[in-house]
C-alpha cells in the first residue's frame, strides 16, 4: 500500500514535470521572441537586448528550465512580466478562489449526479430514466456560457437575488466571495452533472445486470440492500475516473464561466496571462493545472481502492 502510494506519487511527479517541460518547450516555440512581444513597437534592438538580459533569455533554454523547475518545486514560480510581482502570490489566491467554486461544484454535481444516475439506471427505460436522460442530454447540448448568461439574466437582472458579477478581487476574504460562488457553481454543475449522470446510469445498468447482483437478488435480499451494498461500490468504480477528469477540467476549464461572472479565479488569471503574454504566469497556471489533474487521478485511484478490495489487497491467490 505504502509502496504503491510512493510509486504513484513518483509517477505523478514525473507527469507534472513532463507537462511543465512541454509547456516550457511550447512557449519557447512561440513565434517571436518574448522580449519583442513585450516591447511591441518600442522594440529597438537595444531595448530588446536589455529586456532579454533582464528576462534571462540569453542563457540556454535547458538551463533555464532546470532553474525554473527547481524554483517551482519550492513554490517560487518567478516574477510576472506584467505586474513585476512574484507569480506565486496571485497564483495561490486565484487558485484558492477557483477551488472554492470547484469544491462547491464537485459537492453539488457529484452528489446530485450520482443520485440521478442511480435512479435513472434503476428505473431504466421508465419515466424517471426518460426524464433524467432527457435533462442530461439537454445539459450536454447547451454550452456553459449560455447557461451562465441565462442564469445571470434570470437570477441577477430580472430577479436580483444573486450578484451578476464578482466585484471582489482575488485577495478578498473567502466569506465575501461566497455569494458570488452560487451562480458559477450552478452553471458548471449543470454541464458536469450531465456527464456524470450518464456515466453512472450506464454503469449502474451494467452492474445491475451482473451475476453477483443477480445472485444477491436471488438470495432474497431487499432492493435497497442489493443496490447500496452490492451494486453501488462496483457501479461507482468507472464513475470515479469521469469525476476525476471533470474535476481536473474544472480547474482549467472554468475560463468561460469565470469570464462571464468576472470571477477572480485561475481561469481569469489564465486568460489575462494569455492575452498579455505573461509567460511565467502562464507556465505556473499550466503546472498548477497539471498538478490538479494528477492529484485528481490519484484521488480517483485511491477511491477506487476503497471501493474495490481487489486493488486494495493486491492479487493474492486465485487458482
Amino acid at each position, binding site marked *: 500500500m505504502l509502496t504503491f502510494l510512493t510509486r504513484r506519487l513518483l509517477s505523478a511527479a514525473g507527469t507534472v514535470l513532463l507537462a511543465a517541460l512541454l509547456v516550457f518547450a511550447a512557449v519557447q516555440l512561440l513565434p517571436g521572441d518574448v522580449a519583442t512581444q513585450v516591447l511591441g513597437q518600442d522594440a529597438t534592438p537595444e531595448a530588446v537586448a536589455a529586456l532579454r538580459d533582464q528576462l534571462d533569455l540569453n542563457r540556454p533554454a535547458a538551463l533555464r528550465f532546470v532553474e525554473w523547475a527547481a524554483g517551482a518545486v519550492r513554490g517560487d514560480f518567478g516574477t510576472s512580466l506584467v505586474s513585476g510581482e512574484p507569480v506565486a502570490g496571485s497564483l495561490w489566491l486565484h487558485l484558492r478562489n477557483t477551488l472554492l467554486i470547484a469544491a462547491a461544484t464537485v459537492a453539488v454535481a457529484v452528489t446530485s449526479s450520482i443520485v440521478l444516475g442511480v435512479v435513472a439506471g434503476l428505473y431504466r427505460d421508465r419515466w424517471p430514466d426518460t426524464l433524467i436522460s432527457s435533462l442530461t442530454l439537454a445539459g450536454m447540448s447547451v454550452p456553459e456560457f449560455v447557461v451562465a448568461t441565462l442564469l445571470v*439574466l434570470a437570477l441577477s437582472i430580472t430577479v436580483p437575488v444573486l450578484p451578476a458579477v464578482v466585484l471582489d478581487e482575488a485577495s478578498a476574504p473567502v466569506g465575501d466571495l461566497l455569494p458570488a460562488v452560487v451562480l458559477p457553481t450552478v452553471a458548471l454543475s449543470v454541464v458536469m452533472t450531465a456527464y456524470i449522470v450518464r456515466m453512472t446510469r*450506464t454503469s449502474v445498468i451494467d452492474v445491475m445486470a451482473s451475476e453477483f447482483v443477480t445472485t444477491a437478488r436471488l438470495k432474497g435480499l431487499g432492493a435497497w440492500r442489493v443496490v447500496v451494498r452490492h451494486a453501488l461500490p462496483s457501479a461507482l468504480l468507472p464513475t470515479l475516473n*469521469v469525476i476525476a*477528469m471533470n474535476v481536473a477540467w474544472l480547474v482549467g476549464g472554468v*475560463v*468561460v464561466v469565470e469570464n462571464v461572472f468576472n470571477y477572480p479565479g485561475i481561469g481569469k488569471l489564465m486568460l489575462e496571462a*494569455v492575452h498579455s503574454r505573461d509567460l511565467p504566469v502562464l507556465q505556473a*497556471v499550466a503546472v498548477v*493545472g497539471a498538478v490538479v489533474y494528477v492529484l485528481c487521478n490519484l484521488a480517483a485511484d485511491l477511491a477506487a481502492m476503497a471501493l474495490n478490495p481487489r486493488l486494495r489487497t493486491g492479487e493474492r491467490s486465485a487458482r
Partner: protein
Amino acid sequence: MSEAEPNPVDTGGPVKGRPARRAGTARATLRSMLRSKPATAGLVLVAVHVLIALLAPLLTPYSPTANAPGSALLGPSAGHWAGTDALGRDVLARVLHGGRYALTVSFAATACAVALGTLVGCAAALKGGRLDGLVMRVLDAVLAVPPILALLVVVTVLGAGPAVIVLAVTVVYAPQVVRVVRAAAMGVAPLDYVTAARARGERTFPILVREVLPNIADVVSVEFAMRASWVVLLISSLSFLGFGANPPTPDWGLMIAENRTAMTVVPWASLAPIVALATLVLGLNLSADGLAKAWGVDRVKEAQ
C-alpha cells in the same frame, strides 16, 4: 457454456438473436439505429443541419453579412422571422448560414483529431512495449496540461482562423482519442485472429489495417460522433471568447456573444443561434448514442 443466447448448433444456419454487426453493412447499422426513436431523432437533426448548411442561400433572401442600418434590432416579423441584430442583419439568415462554419470547422477538426488519435492509439497498442510506454507517458503529460490553456495559447499565437482552430482542437482532443482507441485496440490485439496474423509474421501496418482497424471502426465512429458534439461546443466557446470566426462570418458562438446583452430587447438574436447550436449538439449526441447502441460500444466506458 451456459447459453448466453440461443446459438445454432453445427447446422450452418445463420445466428439468430444476436444483434447483427457485420462489416461494411452501413445499412444494417442504419436500420438498427432507426429502430430507436432517439437515434432517429439525432440523425434527423444532424441531417437537417447539414441540409440547411448546404441550402442556406436558397432558404433565405437575405445575405447573412449585409448591414442594414435602417432595420437594426427589429423583433420577429413577417419580413424577418427571427428579427434583426444590431447591424440590421437578418438573424435567421445568419443562423442558417452559421451552420456552415460550425459544421465544416467542427468536422475537419474532429476528423483530424480522430485520425491522428486512431493512428497513434493503434500503433501504441499493437507495438506495445517501450513505444507504448513512451506514448502513454507523454500523453499523460499532455492531458495534464489544461486543454483550454493549450487551445488559447495556440490561438493567440497563431491567430484565429479556421485552420488554426482545426489545429488547436486536434492538439487538444487527439490525446483523448488516443486513449480511447488504444484501449479498444488493446482489446482486439490479443484476439486470436490478430495472433494468427502475427504468427504468420505479418508486419504491424498490414495487421493494423486488415485486422485491427475494421474491428475498432465502431469505437472510432462513436468516438467521432461524440467528439464532434464536444468540438462544436468547444468551437462555439472559443468564438464566444473572441477567438473564433472573424466577423462578419455568421457563426453561432459569435452571434451569441454579440447579442447576449440585448437578450431582453431582441431575444431571438441570441436565442436563435443558441437553439441552432443546441439542436446540432443534441443531434450529434443522440446519434453517437444510437451508434453506440447499434454497435454495442459502451460509450461512457470508452470515454474514460
